[in-house]
């Protein structure tokens, strides 16, 4: 089947489905779509992820969500309950382990056994496919808040079948955002197709009375991704999902660190997602936003980690995002204990509460930054449509080939790896090298100009060492890297 951006017919969908369900033994349990749906409909509406987000958007409140997942069902439920009660989390996650993400279900079985034996989780997440519908439903039924799958799985079709059949009403990911940062050699046309399937599945539930939220993964590699690049990807994935019939979409953004740029990026993302969806004829979509606390290397000191967590939250609160993904004081070390995870949540909730009645006010500088990001994003998106000759899905594949879309520090062979980012003197992330990203000369000059300013104050050339220093900067306790210090 050729890749085109077009809603899958039910027949196409069902045909693929046959293969999908065969990829692991638990697939058989979800064969009956009707009864899956019936189950999903029976789940109380208060536990619906999409509806809870919609309400938060209308009330201008920001919801908190942790990351969390362990190998075994009971332990996973205990963990989520703790985060819900002690951590006051508004939305619950289930982070999926890395073997599942690579569809290595055999490894998972081993990991589950080893975990039982060791008495502690040997997996870095919850192997939902192995646990099957029984496990996934048990998780959902044991909790009184909405649950989402958070993973990083290039091919998440079977996983998505299992989670939605179990009443989980949100799924993170997308054909780009769960490919380029999460794999080495999976072709883009493959992941885009696989995520068309995932979106089509979500839309099937939606069309039959179960609102499902879909969330493209905003931060990508979490490492100095220029806002216009991550926004472009988020908007593309929103459009691809909308084409399959998805209604509830949460577009995401990972904190870069300059408050003004971050707020501008969120505003731009919100407005441009709305704009492009309308422009391409997708009406009545409900768009919410998610902000990720700093996704790069974290400081090891816990007091400093709290600072990074809170500082990010201030930005989220002032920008009035719908949801915030929370880091923990253990971030630099490893998967957090449940206490550390709850502490991250409580800290975040407190900052949100302290700022819940406040927001950012428009200044000339903010207006300017919004404009820059929007223009850059437009340059990228227009060229993607162009090279796809009007077809967005084809455009994406072609754009990555040519480096029009390009994600820095990604493991994937399928990104050109030509752009280089670095911070300007205010800490905003700029294009040090635009590679083949089709910015206008004016925008290129602007990026260059902002970096030259840093080069003058820091008395150093604009070069790759800047980028390297910036990668370590936050974990070492500052925002703008400075080699010479």
């Amino acid at each position: 089947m050729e890749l085109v951006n077009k809603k899958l017919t039910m027949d196409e969908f069902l045909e693929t489905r046959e293969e999908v369900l065969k990829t692991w033994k638990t697939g058989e349990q979800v064969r009956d779509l009707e009864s899956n749906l019936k189950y999903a409909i029976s789940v109380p509406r208060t536990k619906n992820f999409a509806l809870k987000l919609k309400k938060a958007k209308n009330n201008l409140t920001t919801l908190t969500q942790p990351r969390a997942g362990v190998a075994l069902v009971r332990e996973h439920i205990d963990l989520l309950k703790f985060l819900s009660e002690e951590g006051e989390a508004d939305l619950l996650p289930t982070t999926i382990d890395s073997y599942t993400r690579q569809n290595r279900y055999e490894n998972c079985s081993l990991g589950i056994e080893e975990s039982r034996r060791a008495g502690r989780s040997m997996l870095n997440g919850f192997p939902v496919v192995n646990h099957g519908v029984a496990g996934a439903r048990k998780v959902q039924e044991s909790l009184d808040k909405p649950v989402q799958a958070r993973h990083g799985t290039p091919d998440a079709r079977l996983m998505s079948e299992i989670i939605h059949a179990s009443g989980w009403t949100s799924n993170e990911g997308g054909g780009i955002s769960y490919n380029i940062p999460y794999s080495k050699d999976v072709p883009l046309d493959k992941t885009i197709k696989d995520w068309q399937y995932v979106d089509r599945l979500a839309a099937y539930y939606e069309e039959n009375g179960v609102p499902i939220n879909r969330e493209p993964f905003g931060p990508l590699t979490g490492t100095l991704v220029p806002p216009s690049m991550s926004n472009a990807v988020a908007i593309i994935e929103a459009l691809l999902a909308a084409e399959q019939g998805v209604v509830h979409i949460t577009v995401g953004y990972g904190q870069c660190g300059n408050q003004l740029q971050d707020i501008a990026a969120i505003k731009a993302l919100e407005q441009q997602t709305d704009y492009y969806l309308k422009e391409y004829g997708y009406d009545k979509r409900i768009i919410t936003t998610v902000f990720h606390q700093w996704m790069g290397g974290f400081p090891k000191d816990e007091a400093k980690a709290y600072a990074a967590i809170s500082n990010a939250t201030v930005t989220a609160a002032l920008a009035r995002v719908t949801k915030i993904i929370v880091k923990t004081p253990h971030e630099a070390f490893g998967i957090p204990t449940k206490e550390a995870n709850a502490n991250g949540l409580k800290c975040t909730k407190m900052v949100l509460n302290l700022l819940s009645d406040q927001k950012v006010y428009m200044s000339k500088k903010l207006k300017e930054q919004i404009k820059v990001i929007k223009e850059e994003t437009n340059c990228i998106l227009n060229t993607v449509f162009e090279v796809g000759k009007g077809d967005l899905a084809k455009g994406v594949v072609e754009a990555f080939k040519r480096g029009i879309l390009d994600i820095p520090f990604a493991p994937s062979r399928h990104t050109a790896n030509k752009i280089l980012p670095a911070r300007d003197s205010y800490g905003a992330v700029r294009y040090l090298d635009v590679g083949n990203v089709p910015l206008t000369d004016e925008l290129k000059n602007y990026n260059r100009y902002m970096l030259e300013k840093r080069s003058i104050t820091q008395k150093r050339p604009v070069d790759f060492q800047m980028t390297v220093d910036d990668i370590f900067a936050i974990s070492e306790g500052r925002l703008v890297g400075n080699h010479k210090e």
Partner: protein
Amino acid sequence: MNGKTIVIGVIGSDVHAVGNKIIDYALTNAGFNVVNVGVLSTQEDFINAAVETNADCILISSLYGHGELDCQGIREKCDEAGLKDILLYIGGNIVVGKQDFKDVEERFKKLGFNRVYPPGVKIEAGIEDLKKDLEIKQ
């Protein structure tokens, strides 16, 4: 160039690419011949590369927490492949969660690693040790 060859990469189902790129950059700058098998690499990927390039050290990164599972039996496989006494280094976030590093180090030493590094250690520390272990003159 100091004439020493180091195989680097990220083991298992691990896609953390940033540190790997930095290590590549830093080792190259320090004069090593770097063979980078990249992320998502199996024990075999590392070992094959080491055999092919007659490497002096296999420097493994593991960030995502499954390091312990992924490294089972690696020393034995090296031995089988004829990589007798090749240096084995590992660093990153090599176990799940915040654990006492003394314990962790011991467990990995038992697996046959010569050097084991705690989270967030800079690669410069590894380079220092390489110079010592490979007797490279400054």
